[in-house]
């Protein structure tokens, strides 16, 4: 018979540690975290939401989750109201427009109480990013819905969005919140095969699958928003602001209208800005036999394929794409010939969007230089003009789709 182990032995020292109970605690802790994340995200917690400011976006190391954004919609929009989700880039985000002069606030005022406008545009995003994903994820909860976003003429509407906002697309796809749409599926399969290494695909899959089960993004975003932020960010580089709950930061967008016009359109930027203005059309057009501008054959063909896959067919009709024109201060400096090409680019691009099944228009024609804060972003006065134009289009679209009648349409 062996001697009993002395009290000081390694085995006996672990009398206070019970592995099975520990594992049960670990599992219960993860389940609890996941449950809390669901509980706080679903109804929404962004009480004073205006838009995604730099501290509430990837620039500030804050990546809003799909459920968090859906929660914002749930907290604001009643089932009997028409949900208007605004997506797109910094122009539609309202860069240069303070919160009280934000164009989507004006849009809400013009549309009235039957509509709820949510600005889900992000800086540098495509029309298929952010807001587009949320709009599709909410298609059954809010069948009365319009999605509005801006784009450039013949800009590529990638079905899977662009970095750094593509994470929302993967999140929605992995969690089964997007429609099963074959043209998009093919594009997604292609991009995964050609632009991601197997290690990146595995990483993406593992991260999304784990997050789907454990909801760690939802929970820690909520902690960061409501209580304490733990991620170093260039937007809040110094203490104590770096750790402040993100809800403490007001929407403090500067006002273009407080800047003299000469400061908004500085001569040293002129050449660079003119190259961009010309670039809106010069890659898509070539000289025809008559010496006039002709759309390159490959451009509409490629665009049609991308636009077909960008949104599911049943959602295209409620998607309004607004093409962003440049400041007339710069457009007016194009030659007469370049001006013809520029006009053709907007006209043809609107036509191509419509041909693909979307609602489309352009804005900026007839605006004054003071309606812009730089080459492309709108000042508050430009925002008011845009809001008026979009309000008319959203109203018309809503009437046509039967949103103004009592019965909710099929999703």
């Amino acid at each position, binding site marked *: 018979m062996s001697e009993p182990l002395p*009290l*000081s032995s390694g085995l*006996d*020292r672990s*009398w*206070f*540690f*019970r*592995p099975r*109970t*520990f*594992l*049960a*605690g*670990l*599992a*219960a*802790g*993860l389940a*609890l*975290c996941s449950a809390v994340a669901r509980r706080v995200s679903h109804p929404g917690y962004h009480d004073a939401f205006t838009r995604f400011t*730099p501290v509430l*976006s*990837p*620039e*500030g*190391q804050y*990546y809003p989750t799909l459920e968090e954004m859906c929660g914002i919609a749930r907290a604001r929009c009643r089932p009997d109201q028409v949900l208007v989700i605004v997506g797109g880039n*910094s122009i539609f985000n309202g*860069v240069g427009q303070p919160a009280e002069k934000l164009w989507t606030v004006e849009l809400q005022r013009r549309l009235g109480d039957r509509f709820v406008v949510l600005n889900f545009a992000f*800086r*540098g995003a495509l029309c298929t990013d952010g807001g587009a994903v949320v709009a599709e994820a909410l298609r059954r909860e809010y069948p009365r819905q319009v999605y509005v976003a801006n784009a450039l003429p013949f800009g590529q509407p990638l079905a899977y969005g662009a*970095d*750094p906002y593509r994470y929302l697309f993967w999140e929605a796809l992995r969690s089964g919140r997007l429609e099963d749409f074959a043209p998009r599926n093919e594009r997604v399969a292609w991009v995964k095969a050609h632009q991601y290494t197997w290690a990146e695909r595995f990483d993406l899959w593992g*991260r999304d699958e*784990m*997050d789907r089960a*454990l909801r*760690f*993004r939802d*929970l*820690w975003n909520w902690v960061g928003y409501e209580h304490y932020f*733990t*991620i170093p*960010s*260039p*937007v809040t580089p110094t203490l104590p602001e770096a750790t402040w709950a993100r809800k403490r930061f007001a929407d403090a967008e500067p006002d273009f209208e407080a800047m003299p016009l000469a400061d908004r359109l500085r001569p040293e930027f002129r050449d660079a800005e003119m190259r*961009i203005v010309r670039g809106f059309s010069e890659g898509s057009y070539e000289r025809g036999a008559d010496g006039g501008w002709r759309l390159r054959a490959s451009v509409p063909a490629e665009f049609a394929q991308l636009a077909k896959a960008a949104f599911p067919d049943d959602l295209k009709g409620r998607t309004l794409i607004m093409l962003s024109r440049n400041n007339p201060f710069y457009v007016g400096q194009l030659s007469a010939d370049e001006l013809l090409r520029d006009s053709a680019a907007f006209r043809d691009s609107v036509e191509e969007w419509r041909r693909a099944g979307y609602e489309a228009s352009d804005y900026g024609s007839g605006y004054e230089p003071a309606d812009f804060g*730089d080459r*492309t*972003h709108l000042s508050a006065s430009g925002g008011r003009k845009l809001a008026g134009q979009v309000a008319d289009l959203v109203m018309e679209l809503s009437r046509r789709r039967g949103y103004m009648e009592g019965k909710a349409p099929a999703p």
Partner: protein
Amino acid sequence: MNTLDSLRKRMPQPVARAVAHTGSLLLGLVLAVLLHYVLYRLGLPSKPFIYVAF
């Protein structure tokens, strides 16, 4: 460790068992929260997105 051993010797067996289970459970819960947070941090890009207007 000697302190723990002497503590256990002074405790009745059922109490020692309850303390062990409670401690292990709490340790599991705390580590679960830590693991949850680590997974969140690992999911974030190491470099933030820098927005440049174009």
